[in-house]
C-alpha cells in the first residue's frame, strides 16, 4: 500500500492547547538558552538549596501528623479508584523527608527529638501544605517532590508532563539489546516521539555509541522544556535534540534515515479517562493519556510514519494499552503496511500484560 506523505506529516490532531507560534517553528533548540520560548522548569525538591532550618522536634511533629493523616485513609482510595493505600502513603512520607532534609543521618537519630536544627530544602509550613495536597487533592507524589526515580535516573517532572511509568523502562532494555548486536544501529539517529519528561530519550542516549543521537519530540511546550532540563542535567545536550511539534511533523528532514523509533504515545481509550485513579485523571495532562475512541489514534499514526522514517533494518518499539492494542497494531502492520515491517514481537511487561510491539523495517 502506498504511503501518503501528506497524511504522515499532517499534525494529526490539533489539541486546543497548541499555539500557532509553536506550529510555525519546526523545532525548538535543546538549550535552555532561549528564554523567550522556553518555559522555566521547576527545580525538583531534592535539588533546591537547603536554606530553611527547622527544629528536629518540629519535623517530628510534622511527621507524626502526616502519618496520622495517611493512616486515616486506610484503603479508602483503593476502594474508590484503585488509588494508594495508607502503607504506600507512609512510604511516601519517608521519601518526602529524604528529599526535603539535607542531612539524612538525622533519620537514624532515635526519636527525632530536641531543639537541634536540621537544614531543609523547604519551609516546614510548606511541608504541611504539600502533604495536604497529596492527600486531599490526590496530587501525585512525584509532582509534590518534582521528580521520579526511573531506571537509574532521577527525572524532573511537574504538572503538564506525564510521570514516566515503570513499564516504560523496559523499552530502554529492548534498545540495549538491539544495539548490542548491531553497531550500525548503535551509531545511528533514534527518535523518541512524545518524549514527555525525556525519559526514553535519555535512557537511549546513554546506551548509544558516541556518534549515535536521539531526536525527541513533543507537542507540549511544558514537556519539551522539562525534557530539556533533564537532558541538560545528564549532560546529554550534544546527543539529544528536542523538537517541538506533532509526531513526525518536526522530523521531515529524517525521512528514511532513522535507525530506531520508540514511543509511548497516549493510548487510553477516551471513555476510560473519567474512571482513572485521581492522581492520573485529575492531575496528569490529558494530551498525554487520551488515545481517542479506541486509544489507537496515535499508535496507528506512528505506524504509518515509522514505515516512512525508518531506514532499512531500522528498529521500532511502541508501548500500548495491553493485549488488544498489541494485536490490533500487529494486524494493522501486516494488512495495511504489508512489506514495510518484519520480525514483529509482542512483549509483556513485568506484570505479564502484553504491553509492547517491537519489530524492524524491511
Amino acid at each position, binding site marked *: 500500500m502506498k504511503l501518503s506523505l501528506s497524511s504522515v506529516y499532517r499534525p494529526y490532531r490539533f489539541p486546543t492547547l497548541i499555539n500557532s507560534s509553536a506550529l510555525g517553528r519546526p523545532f525548538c533548540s535543546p538549550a535552555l538558552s532561549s528564554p523567550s520560548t522556553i518555559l522555566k522548569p521547576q527545580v525538583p525538591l531534592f535539588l533546591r538549596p537547603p536554606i530553611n532550618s527547622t527544629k528536629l522536634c518540629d519535623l517530628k511533629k510534622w511527621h507524626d501528623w502526616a502519618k496520622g493523616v495517611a493512616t486515616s485513609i486506610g484503603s479508602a482510595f483503593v476502594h474508590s479508584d484503585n488509588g494508594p493505600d495508607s502503607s504506600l502513603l507512609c512510604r511516601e512520607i519517608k521519601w518526602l523527608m529524604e528529599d526535603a532534609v539535607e542531612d539524612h543521618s538525622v533519620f537514624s537519630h532515635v526519636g527525632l527529638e530536641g531543639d537541634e536544627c536540621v537544614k531543609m530544602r523547604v519551609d516546614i509550613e510548606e511541608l504541611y501544605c504539600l502533604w495536604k495536597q497529596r492527600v486531599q487533592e490526590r496530587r501525585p507524589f512525584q509532582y509534590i517532590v518534582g521528580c521520579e526515580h526511573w531506571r537509574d535516573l532521577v527525572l524532573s517532572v511537574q504538572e503538564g508532563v506525564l510521570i514516566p*511509568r515503570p513499564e516504560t523502562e523496559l523499552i530502554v532494555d529492548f534498545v540495549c539489546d538491539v544495539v548490542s548486536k548491531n553497531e550500525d544501529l548503535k551509531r545511528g539517529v533514534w527518535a523518541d516521539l512524545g518524549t514527555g519528561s525525556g525519559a526514553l530519550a535519555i535512557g537511549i542516549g546513554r546506551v548509544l555509541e558516541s556518534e549515535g543521537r536521539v531526536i525527541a519530540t513533543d507537542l507540549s511546550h511544558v514537556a519539551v522544556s522539562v525534557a530539556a532540563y533533564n537532558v541538560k542535567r545528564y549532560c546529554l545536550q550534544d546527543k539529544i535534540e528536542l523538537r517541538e511539534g506533532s509526531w513526525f511533523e518536526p522530523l521531515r528532514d529524517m525521512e528514511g534515515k532513522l535507525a530506531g523509533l520508540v514511543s509511548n504515545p497516549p493510548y487510553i481509550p477516551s471513555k476510560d479517562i473519567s474512571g482513572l485513579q485521581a492522581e492520573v485523571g485529575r492531575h496528569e495532562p490529558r494530551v498525554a493519556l487520551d488515545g481517542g475512541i479506541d486509544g489507537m489514534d496515535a499508535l496507528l499514526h506512528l505506524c504509518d510514519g515509522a514505515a516512512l522514517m525508518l531506514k532499512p533494518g531500522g528498529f521500532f518499539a511502541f508501548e500500548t494499552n495491553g493485549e488488544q492494542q498489541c494485536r490490533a497494531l500487529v494486524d494493522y502492520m501486516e494488512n495495511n503496511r504489508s512489506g514495510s515491517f518484519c520480525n514483529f514481537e509482542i*512483549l509483556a511487561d513485568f506484570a505479564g500484560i502484553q504491553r509492547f510491539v517491537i519489530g524492524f523495517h524491511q
Partner: protein
Amino acid sequence: MSMAHRTLFKPTFLLTLTHNKTFISHNPFRHSIILPSTTITLNTHLRWCSSNYTTTIDDGSTAKAKGYLGLTDEELMRQCELGTFKTSGPGGQHRNKRESAVRLKHLPTGIIAQASEDRSQHKNRASALNRLRSLIALKVRKPVDLDSYSPPLELLQILPPKSSIRGSDCGPQIGPNNPKFALGMQALLDLIFAAEGSVSEVAKYLGLSTGALSRLILSDDSLRMEVNNLRASKGMKPLK
C-alpha cells in the same frame, strides 16, 4: 493472519525470527524472566539457558552450588522468576502507584530474595539480586573431601592476613560488604559443614587460630546464624 503463539524463556531477545511472524513472548526483559507461572517448567527454562551453565545445573544437585554464584547478574537473573507489582488493573498509563518492590525466586533452588526500600524498581532489582547471592551462598552446600582439601582462592581472599596459608598474592582481605564475600562465605560454609561444625578443626585447614576464625564467622550476621544453626543441630554451643 499467521500468529505463532509461543511462551518461551529467552536468554536474550530473539532477533532472528522468521519474517512476518508474530511471536508472543512473556519475557520482554533481557535480564529477567516473567513467569506465566503455570505454563513453564524448569526444563523448558533450561533449554533456553546458554550451554555453558546448563551443564552445571543439570549435573548432581550439589555440584552446582559454586556455579550459581559464578554466573553474571544477567545469567543469574535468567534463572529467576521475577515478581514485581501485583497485577490489579491495566497498569501502564492508567496507574500511579509506586509499587517498586521486587521479589526474585531462584527457580533451581527455590530461594526467594526481595527488596523494596528504594523508589526505583531498577535499584530494588539490583539489591534483590545481591541478597539472592548471599542467600545462595548460605543455603546451597557442596560436599568437600577433607582428606584432599585445599581452600579455593575465593575463600583465601576473605581470610585475615595472619592466616599462615594465605599467600600475599591473594590481595587485601575481602570483607562482608564486598559482593565477592558471598563466594568466599559459601566455600567456608562448605568446609564447616564437612567438619560438622567444629571451628577448631576448620581453623587448622585455614591456618588460623580458633579465635581468629570465630571472629571471622562473627563478622557477618547471616554467616554466624548459619554456623550456629548447624552447631545447634549437632548439640554444640553457639559461637558468641
